[in-house]
């Protein structure tokens, strides 16, 4: 991205030189000798989404490999939903999460992709197509990606119950979330979601105060504690919401929680300072605590994980060369470099085989297979994340993604749930 800005700012001769360089680069690196590869070189695609997958390094590499300029805009998740629906001409590619897709796609501002134009479609992790990671897997509750991955036809906004030729989103990153603990301070093995309600941890726990995600963690806790068994955690009835919130209010009145966090850094500080010893957490936050030399474990639990995922969707207005460029970008996205880049951050990517080709055997073993690291494990910026001997919390990709109990979701009773959540916070 910076490269294009520079090109625009300087004289014609230098611009020509730079363009020549970019052309040579694109020819050498892509490995996709498509007929129109030359035409798409000057296309600009406007992509917006949450900060997690909207990374400048990807835009730079894309420019280098394809010549396509990606203009990235990062917004918080609420703003993303709103923009996707209300300003359909302000973007070309929407980087949204699957639960958002359930809200956004029916609004008719996106167009489905033709799977025949996606070269590696068959290699995409089946969570996003059939919904079953392995043939014998059970599809988790909530907005499971496969339930919103396909529509009936090219102009349709109705989700299809089984795979069709029309794909709504190309998965970018996804992960399985659980509780983070301070192994040095909890003083006992943690095995279940309900352990966060253990009176021994009174005043030393936290859950996240983002209603749509917090309620899912709360549901995992309630079900684990035997308070309630949900029909579908991702789509609760009013009675189920009442029971869940009442349980939380009781716990809050008893002083179980130290704080509720809303942002990534708050969760890191709560854990690092010892204010809490067990709490809802996101994977990079655990890494951040550990990088300060403080022990922190992303604890796998018997009931399983709460998963989330995001993907790229095409704006409805895309056509002609822009649409071709968007397909080319998506094909490039799946071709390995990006996948490896994301896997190295502790997320998972859509096509594992190609990502593997861009990772060392040690990296692959640590991040994806749950094997002990042989040497130092570094993040994409080159900082050391783990030393030799470390094993990823929760183990391999199949151990973690195979134990998903529910996906982040939007409920039909969304509005009621938020009112009740506010009551919990105000009580």
């Amino acid at each position: 991205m910076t490269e294009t800005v520079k090109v625009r700012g300087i004289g014609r001769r230098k611009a020509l030189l730079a363009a020549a360089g970019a052309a040579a680069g694109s020819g050498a690196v892509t490995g996709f000798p498509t007929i129109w590869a030359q035409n798409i070189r000057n296309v600009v695609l406007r992509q917006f989404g949450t900060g997690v997958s909207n990374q400048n390094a990807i835009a730079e590499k894309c420019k280098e490999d394809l010549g396509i300029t990606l203009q990235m805009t990062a917004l918080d998740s609420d703003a993303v939903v709103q923009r996707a629906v209300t300003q359909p001409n302000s973007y070309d590619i929407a980087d949204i999460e699957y639960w958002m897709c359930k809200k956004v796609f029916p609004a008719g501002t996106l167009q489905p992709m033709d799977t025949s134009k996606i070269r590696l479609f068959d290699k995409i992790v089946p969570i996003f197509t059939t919904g079953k990671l392995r043939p014998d897997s059970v599809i988790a509750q909530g907005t499971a990606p496969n339930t919103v991955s396909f529509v009936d036809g090219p102009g349709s906004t109705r989700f299809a119950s089984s795979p069709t030729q029309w794909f709504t989103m190309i998965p970018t990153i996804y992960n399985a979330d659980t509780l983070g603990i301070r192994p040095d301070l909890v003083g006992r093995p943690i095995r279940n979601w309900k352990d966060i309600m253990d009176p021994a941890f009174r005043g030393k726990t936290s859950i996240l105060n983002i209603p749509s995600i917090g309620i899912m963690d709360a549901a995992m806790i309630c079900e684990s504690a035997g308070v309630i068994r949900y029909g579908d955690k991702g789509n609760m009835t009013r009675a189920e919401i009442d029971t869940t919130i009442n349980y939380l209010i009781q716990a809050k009145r008893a002083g179980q929680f130290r704080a509720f966090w809303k942002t990534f850094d708050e969760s890191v500080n709560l854990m690092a300072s010892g204010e809490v010893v067990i709490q809802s957490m996101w994977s990079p936050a655990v890494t951040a605590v550990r990088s300060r030399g403080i022990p922190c474990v992303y604890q796998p639990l018997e009931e399983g994980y709460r998963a989330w995922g995001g993907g790229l969707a095409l704006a409805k207005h895309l056509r002609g060369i822009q649409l071709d460029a968007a397909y080319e970008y998506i094909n490039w996205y799946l071709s390995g470099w990006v996948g490896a880049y994301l896997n190295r951050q502790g997320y998972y990517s859509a096509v594992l085989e190609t990502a593997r080709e861009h990772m060392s055997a040690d990296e692959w073993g640590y991040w994806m297979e749950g094997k002990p690291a042989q040497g130092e494990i570094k993040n994409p910026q080159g900082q050391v994340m783990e030393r030799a001997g470390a094993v990823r919390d929760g183990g391999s990709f199949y151990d973690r993604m195979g134990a998903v109990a529910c996906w982040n979701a939007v409920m039909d009773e969304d509005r009621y749930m938020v009112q009740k959540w506010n009551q919990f916070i105000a009580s």
Partner: protein
Amino acid sequence: MKGKLAALALASPLALLLGVFLVVPIGTIVVVSFFDYDSVRIIPDFVWTNYDELLFSPITWKTYLQTLKFAAITWAICLLVGFTVAYFLAFHVASPMMQTVLFLVCTIPFWTSNIIRMISWIPFLGRNGLLNQALMSVGAIDQPLEFLLFSDFAVVLAYVHLYALFMVVPIFNSMVRIDRALVEAARDAGAGEWQVLRHVIIPLARPGIAIGSILVVAVVMGDFVTVRLMSGGQSASVGLMMVNAMSLLQYPAAAANAVVLLIVVLLMIAAMLRIVDIRKEL
């Protein structure tokens, strides 16, 4: 006629500015507060549901009470602290030079952003924070004091720290204008220190007290960051209710709440102005 035109012309820039940046936005908020909404859109309409859901929910009343409680406690402490500091500066520091220097010292905390001033309390008050460690090492306590952080105490502490100066400045300003001859006359007439304070200084500092009170109360009533950070999300405030609604794209609900809050704060300020007529006394 010409004079009238000139006056209008002179007033028009301010009128325009207020119109564009105050009247239009508030008007928009009022209009939106009657809109309907679903999970992603706001739908132009005229419905009372937003006010209905707001005013007939016990959560709203509880939250308003909680916010008023914060405002009242903060106001009382800020008044005590602000008045004392201003009184000391105005009457016990002799040289105007020294007054200015000390006054500037009071503003030093304001050289950093209020978020930073707030956040810096967290490592100080935390369970393993400086204060608890210090108290434990001198043997004053043997368990860390948990109420220091993520509590109503922490919220009020941060408010006082952030807003006491808003009280100091106007009161100090009123006090330095008090004619010293009045104080001397009172003394000559046999008034003691307390009587001078009670019958001369406080009545004459009333406009400053009123302005300071309006500033503190208005700021606390609308706050959401301090409550969220210092209570660790355990406490609610009206501002926080609005933020929650907005983060779920429920703009009409937040707008209705904003309108109600605006009315409440305006009523409070009107009440204060009934007690002290600022314009008459300035």
